[in-house]
């Protein structure tokens, strides 16, 4: 019987009915301390430290603080130092502050070449879906499950349903993977993928870089999906090749990886088709990622949801929080802050694209803009290419690696009422700082917005 890529990976990892073996467990400081405590209480070891790796990202200041003990915020310092102690005690490799491999957990996995096709990958973070870009089955788990994986290297899982989204056509000029996934969530809604492992398929995917694919899979959780996946191909294999974690017998690995893509005729529980060529640059206007529209459009009128009172009330509340009037053109929205970074959009290609918009221009006087590379290695690469100078001379702040203003667990936050164009993944109330107002966009759109001080349709921008 023809099988989906999801089925192939799931079936190869089933230890017993509903018990899945985990090939790679990524750990960070926020969702792990209680799990390690649980192990200590029961006297349990970590079963496979050699399949586990940790980094510090959520709490990390992006001002170049060189070591955990020097983090100014006491609670953040304790959390990172606790991770360091736990990893030492349980023999888990750790890239903490001061390591040249430190960075956002979903950036460093692929960067080290340990994110590979066909693997099961988990992490106590919902954006673990990012790693599905390599044709892996990757999903976020809670702290109890983190403890379970540490103790058993397995996870109790119900088999999710499968969904395939088939994209046709090429993305237009100025339209990016970020716009594609925002448009998809806008169409399906923030619970449209709940209960599903989602495969992003079709000709459009073949033309996308690994960075682009990671951006798409990253935001699967914003559509409620359990996992997002894209079939591996030569683009995938070239990415993994030569990295520290790449398989020793690479040719044999590639031969096995070529067997992973969904078989012709395999059936999915849900099928969706989207015309990628029709997608425009997107901007969110509300307080969840499904509240999104085209840059050429206007802030919607909640009255348009007349027959769905819950949606109308949600839209009304969102507009009140966002301080936006229905009918306002998106390009009239003025910004206070711009954030380029996060596990969605902080890789080298993201920074190159943002820099290409900036070149020679200046950040608007009313805007404070920052660029936060996703890892120390992305930072080093960008500096080698001179991108930091492009950003700095335009008036952007150039920071060190971490989750930064995506979630405000570190000093990078919005002030009450500030409006931000952000390349991150969540525009929830207060996400970037209490009272902060977040508009999700692509790196190119964010960079252009920093220059103009308002959103701009980059397709006609010169």
């Amino acid at each position, binding site marked *: 019987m023809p099988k989906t890529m999801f089925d192939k990976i799931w079936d190869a990892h089933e230890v017993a009915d*509903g018990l899945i073996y985990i090939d790679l467990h990524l750990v960070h400081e926020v*969702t792990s301390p209680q799990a390690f*405590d649980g192990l200590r209480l029961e006297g349990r070891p970590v079963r496979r430290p*050699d399949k586990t790796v940790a980094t510090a990202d959520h709490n990390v200041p992006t001002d170049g603080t060189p070591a955990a003990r020097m983090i100014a915020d006491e609670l953040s310092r304790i959390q990172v130092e606790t991770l360091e102690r736990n990893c030492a005690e349980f023999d888990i490799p750790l890239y903490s502050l001061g390591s040249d491999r430190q960075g956002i957990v979903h950036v460093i996995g692929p960067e080290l070449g340990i994110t590979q096709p066909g693997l099961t990958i988990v992490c106590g973070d*919902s954006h673990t879906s990012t790693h599905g870009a390599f044709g892996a089955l990757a999903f976020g*788990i809670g702290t*109890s499950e983190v403890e379970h994986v540490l103790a058993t290297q397995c996870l109790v899982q119900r088999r999710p349903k499968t969904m395939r989204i088939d994209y046709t056509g090429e993305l237009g000029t100025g339209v990016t993977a970020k716009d594609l996934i925002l448009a998809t969530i806008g169409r399906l809604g923030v619970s449209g993928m709940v209960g599903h492992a989602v495969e992003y398929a079709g000709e459009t995917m073949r033309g996308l870089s690994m960075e682009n694919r990671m951006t798409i899979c990253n935001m699967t*959780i914003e559509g409620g999906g359990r996992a997002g996946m894209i079939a591996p191909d030569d683009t995938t294999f070239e990415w993994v090749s030569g990295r520290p974690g790449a398989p020793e017998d690479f040719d044999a690995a590639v031969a096995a990886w070529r067997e992973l893509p969904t078989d012709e005729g395999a059936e999915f529980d849900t099928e969706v088709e989207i015309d990628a060529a029709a997608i425009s640059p997107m901007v969110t206007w509300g307080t969840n990622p499904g509240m999104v529209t085209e840059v050429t459009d206007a802030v919607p009128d909640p009255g348009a949801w007349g027959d769905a009172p819950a949606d109308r009330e949600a839209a009304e509340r969102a507009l009140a929080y966002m301080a936006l009037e229905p009918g306002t053109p998106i390009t009239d929205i003025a910004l206070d802050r711009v954030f380029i970074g996060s596990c969605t959009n902080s890789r080298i290609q993201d920074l190159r694209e943002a820099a290409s918009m900036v070149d020679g221009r200046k950040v608007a006087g009313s805007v404070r803009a920052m660029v936060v590379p996703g890892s120390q290695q992305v930072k080093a690469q960008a500096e080698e290419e001179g991108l930091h100078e492009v950003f700095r001379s335009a008036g952007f702040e150039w920071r060190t690696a971490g989750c930064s203003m995506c979630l405000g667990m570190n000093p990078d936050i919005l002030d009450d009422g500030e409006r931000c164009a952000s390349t991150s993944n969540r525009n*929830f109330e207060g996400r970037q700082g*209490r009272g902060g107002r977040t508009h999700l966009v692509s790196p190119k759109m964010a960079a252009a917005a920093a220059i103009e001080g308002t959103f701009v349709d980059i397709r006609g921008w010169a």
Partner: protein
Amino acid sequence: MRPVDVIEGKVSVVERADVDTDQIIPKQFLKRVERTGFGEFLFYDWFRSGELELEPNPILVAGRNFGSGSSREHAVWAIQDFGFEAVVAPSFADIFYVNCTKNGLLPVILSEDACRELAAAGEGRIDVDDQTMTFAGGVVEFEIDEETKHRLLHGLDDIGITLKDEGAITAFEEAGGADRGPVTTAL
């Protein structure tokens, strides 16, 4: 984990769809390294602004897609620590649902109509074994996976159950099932 069999009493209501875990427990409270003490930060911003008030009743009734967004289990710990023993909604986000069951916070999926009627009734009784929710409007059945129900009813430790199967894990590893993927200690 404490066994969960019958939960009864008054209900509190959050009449909103897509309530995300950032609202349930904002990020600034995720820095604690313990599992306890999160109740006072539940719905922190909404409580502080006065746009939401909740009594710590046994049952919380919420809108569809409750618990979306971040995987933070702190959201479940906060709801429990505040006093709720069950959350009833038309649907839940996947990770949040699982996190509930791992902590003995009972997630119950009822139709939109049943949720509204339960909210209007003001109190109810949930029987896990029978898979029924009883309130002034009547009795409705709910679905729960057999395995999850068994663990909840007996308060079983998931890891303990899996480790009973340790022979199977070892056999899987020895048969080559664990050969895929990198050796992180050799990077």
